[in-house]
């Protein structure tokens, strides 16, 4: 990870970290390879343009990269409507190829948790008891050169 002042700020003081009182949706992103996971909590509100994220929080069982990715992505997701959230998730997924393997898996996990939270909210509109949706990452946390050595 290239450590600059912005990254250090997210490490020293991750934004939106913790649980969220009065949340009305939750989503989970998981890495089946190593058991790491991210939970995202949303408080969704509605205005004349539809539903949007009024407040957001996340927690992670994972490395510092996951915490930084969570801090950045949840900051960007705040106050977005659901279309905006889907665009953010898509934009994140599209840059994963350019990231080192371990960073890609962490960012994917956060993006998927966010998408899972939105989908959980949508399902709960019809079924209040709908369980929290969990999505699994497709990127491996093992750097490519190590993965080749293992093979």
């Amino acid at each position, binding site marked *: 990870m290239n450590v600059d002042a912005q990254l*250090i700020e997210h*490490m020293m003081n991750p934004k939106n*970290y913790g649980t969220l009182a009065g949340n009305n949706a939750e989503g989970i992103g998981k890495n089946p390879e190593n058991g790491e996971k991210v939970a995202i909590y949303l408080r969704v509100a509605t205005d004349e343009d539809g539903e949007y994220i009024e407040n957001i929080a996340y*927690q992670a069982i994972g*490395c510092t990269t996951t915490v930084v990715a969570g801090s950045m992505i949840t900051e960007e997701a705040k106050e977005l409507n659901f279309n905006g959230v889907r665009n953010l998730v898509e934009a994140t997924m599209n840059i994963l190829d350019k990231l080192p393997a371990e960073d890609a898996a962490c960012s994917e996990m956060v993006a998927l948790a966010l998408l899972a939270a939105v989908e959980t909210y949508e399902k709960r509109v019809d079924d209040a008891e709908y369980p929290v949706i969990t999505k699994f990452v497709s990127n491996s946390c093992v750097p490519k050169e190590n993965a080749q050595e293992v093979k």
Partner: protein
Amino acid sequence: MKTLMIKTHEVWLEVLMASFMSNTDNKKVLSNFSDILFRHFTWLENEHIVLDESYNYDRDHIPIKVEKLSDILKDITNRLNEIDLQLMAIDNKALSSRISSDLYYITSVLMHMKDEKITAFNMERKYQGTILSQEATDALTLFLFEESYKEYELIMIYNYLKMHSSDSYMNRIFQILIEESFFHLKSFGDMQAQMGLLGVPRIVMKDLYQVEDVVQFLKDGINEELAAKEECIKLSEAVAKESPELEKFFNFINQQENYHIALMEDALKHFKKANNE
């Protein structure tokens, strides 16, 4: 009482962070006070267990970024006064008066502490005047954030396991591991503050400390300790050229991990035997 435990958890960490920030005799006093507040936290936790009340280790964000020590001491004093007021609502008067008496002394000492200018947040990333290469500085930065959280996480997990176990053999091991993790957390926290990178470790997720499978937890823990050893070796090599002191320190931490692994292996063996696994 739930709020009281959360507030005590927060102030324990805040005092610990203040001890990292200090560069004078205040450091030792604050560090000792944080130990006392951690014990209060465990007493309150025990009270929850005795009364069969549910609880967890959730807490709020703790703002610690200050320019002068007196700024954080004021906030700590306010928090301690608030806790003292809340103690009146506890039925266990022996417990509340014991904590209250400690708080009275702590606040009276804090009030007279000499002020200090704080540099723990300046992001200079220099350790005791040593200039490390960019690569070594980045590696050290990531290590400190990763491991200071890890040590806090381990304190919380071992504490929870200890609180919910009546097996004296296991509890002896958990207590040693808590003390070892405290030493590491304090060492890394002091280094973070020296480098201008101090941050409060993030909240530990419930899934981690409400351990359902102790055997798997211990096996994973042993693997994590082995990984931590590797990190220490890498870091020790990365800083060796520029700082023999840091090299020695990380070799020392690496060796300590061997003891942690031995303790966890011992706990695993005992737990399996005690539970016929």
